[in-house]
């Protein structure tokens, strides 16, 4: 008889889904936001996206080569990191800053901690915060020739008026990929339909943030009860908070990052609530108008603790019902 065959321990079949497929699904889901950003902010935005993604991939490849390890760029995670970072950059950022950000995301946040699956912080957000601290002037400058200056959230912080319809469409100032709620939700729906992400984290994040705003905003429940405000919830303010800034992009694409969110089901709910409250705190009571990036990064750091207290019960030990 012939020498057959592969012998291995069961199971002998595998699903077709692979890591790189998941990564490319995320890239496709980010395309509506990317394309809208390019249409809105022009070809310089396209250049930034290309440079950031290219740098991220090249950096990962070179780093692996220098470390004498097989290159991991085929898994597509560097593309996702580069693209997410690009969408979080102002549309007129000097190119060298974008390159620096991409290198920081890949080398410092991701590869130094062991590469894919080992980083404790979302690489794109880590790099964004690094850039905001290091190049505050450029990173917070959303002025440009064609489009108006301050972001809707900055206007709200000053007590001004915003056009919610424009915010949902994306006709406002902001980073390349965060302005259009419609484009982001479209991409998110694609990922949810594919089963790549679910609504546990985005859902609890958005709902808890909305509740926080409804209670603590200048026209919120507390202000209403204490008669500081005559109206109960200014809907323009409320909807502006929900659709403005990086909230949608953060909730659907950054908070759901596999590596840096809890793996346990209960942990994911808890994490979402935590992010919502933290974002609310930063936006309403912090000095800046934005809060999503820092909220998610702090959330990332707490993931090991959240997982520890939310380890599921086993089947037959009370865990069979959930």
């Amino acid at each position, binding site marked *: *008889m012939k020498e057959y065959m592969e012998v*291995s321990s069961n199971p002998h079949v595998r699903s077709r889904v692979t890591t790189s497929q998941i990564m490319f699904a995320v890239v496709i889901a980010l395309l509506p936001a990317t394309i809208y950003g390019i249409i809105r902010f022009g070809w310089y935005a396209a250049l930034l996206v290309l440079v950031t993604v290219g740098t991220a991939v090249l950096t990962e490849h070179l780093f692996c080569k220098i470390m004498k390890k097989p290159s991991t760029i085929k898994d597509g995670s560097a593309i996702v990191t580069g693209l997410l970072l690009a969408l979080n950059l102002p549309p007129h950022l000097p190119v060298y800053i974008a390159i620096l950000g991409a290198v920081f995301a890949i080398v410092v946040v991701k590869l130094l901690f062991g590469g894919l699956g080992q980083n404790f912080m979302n690489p794109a957000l880590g790099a964004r915060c690094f850039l905001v601290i290091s190049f505050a002037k450029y990173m917070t400058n959303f002025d440009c020739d064609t489009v108006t200056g301050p972001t809707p959230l900055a206007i709200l912080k000053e007590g001004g008026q915003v056009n919610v319809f424009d915010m949902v469409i994306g006709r406002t100032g902001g980073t390349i990929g965060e302005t259009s709620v419609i484009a982001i939700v479209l991409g998110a729906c694609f990922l949810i339909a594919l089963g790549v992400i679910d609504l546990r984290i985005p859902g609890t994040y958005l709902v808890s943030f909305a509740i926080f705003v409804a209670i603590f905003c200048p026209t919120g429940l507390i202000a209403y009860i204490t008669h500081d405000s005559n109206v109960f919830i200014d809907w323009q303010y409320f909807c502006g908070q929900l659709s403005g800034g990086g909230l949608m992009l953060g909730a659907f694409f950054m908070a759901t990052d596999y590596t840096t969110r809890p793996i346990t089901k209960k942990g994911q709910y808890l994490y979402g609530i935590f992010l919502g409250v933290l974002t609310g705190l930063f936006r309403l009571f912090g000095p800046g108008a934005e809060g999503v990036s820092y909220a998610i990064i702090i959330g990332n750091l707490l993931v090991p603790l959240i997982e520890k207290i939310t380890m599921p019960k086993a089947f037959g030990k009370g865990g069979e019902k959930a």
Partner: protein
Amino acid sequence: MARFTFHGGIHPYEGKESSKDRPIKQYLPKGDLVYPLSQHIGAPANAIVAKGDTVKVGQKIAEANGFVSSPIYASVSGTVKAVEPRRVITGDNVMSIVIENDGKYEEVDFPEPKPVEVLLKEDIIGMIREAGIVGMGGAGFPTHVKLSPKEPDKIDYVIANCSECEPYLTSDYRKMIEQPEKLVEGLAIILRLFDNAHGILAVEDNKPDCIKILKKLTADNNRISVATLKTKYPQGSERQLIYACTGRAINSSMLPADAGCVVNNTDTIIAVYNAVKEGRPLMKRIVTVTGDCIKHPQNFSVPIGTNYAELIEEAGGFVKEPEKIVSGGPMMGFAIFDINVPCTKTSSALLCLSHDDVSSAVETACINCGRCVEVCPGRVVPSRLADFAQHKDKEAFEANNGMECCECGCCSYICPAKRQLTQSIKSMRRMILADRKKK
């Protein structure tokens, strides 16, 4: 309360259509038959024949060695050629009785069975024990032990595991289509052992024809009902099945009897019928020979001890070079490297695949996606357990419910990074169980 499903589980490619409509074909082997003395969980049987002895079909050739053990019967007539170690599906060499087939299939005179009504409970259990019946779904646990719980009066449900959730397998399906009366009567016989029990025929909803037939047969029977379960792997896993049928959950350190349940597989119940009603010991079983390498995938009724190579030939041989041959289903079966091994009491299928998913998959880093957690029917966190296993961290492994894993393989199946999750967890569990035995 019945839930008809459980949390977690997967939907692999079923592959049942290639053999599902092929009626069971009786196959009588031409070559030698090999009977490993250990075809069950528990002590190996003791051979009671020696080289040169002539045997007939139905003659006992090995005696049970203790309570948790099972006798073995010849399924062929001929001469004992040797009692020597032979290779079995797991790759081990196991002491086996080899019988040279004379091709006549002469039978012993089977004793005229008494009517079931006059049999005492002890008689029934004794007959099942003497017939060499073991769990034929794969585990091979001696059935008479399962049917002898400490307090038989506290058994509320006797569940017939007709779910056949393993992909490709159609042997139970064919039995339900062709011999449903035997299944129902076999279950009724087992119910005689448990005065307070209700019988449940648990069938997955991908077999609507079986459900229809069984419902019709049990329409007037107030002790047996049919439960239609959601199609999902591992619906036939004992703990998940009990939960789906009764809403009761047991953990790894409990027995089904602790939840008032006894679970038996379709083929086992039919073997009980054959033993009690017809006085015939366990000598045959149904084997599905299938996979994309097989010319004519089909279901055979084969004498236990038949060489797999003969079955492949009888099914038309290979149309493609097989890359992997599995004894059993793709989720729980054993990959074999030599097809010259005997079919045993627990061989449900022979699956020949031209493409092996496992060897072609490249293992990459865990991305923490949580798919393994979603599908785990044991409700543990497989990716973490596999990490603990790879780091040999026994304490953390046990503290995180590592011993609750039922080794169903769902996590390995679903993992997009193609990690060997089940395999790592399994080896760690073996190590811990071995440690416990030492103490």
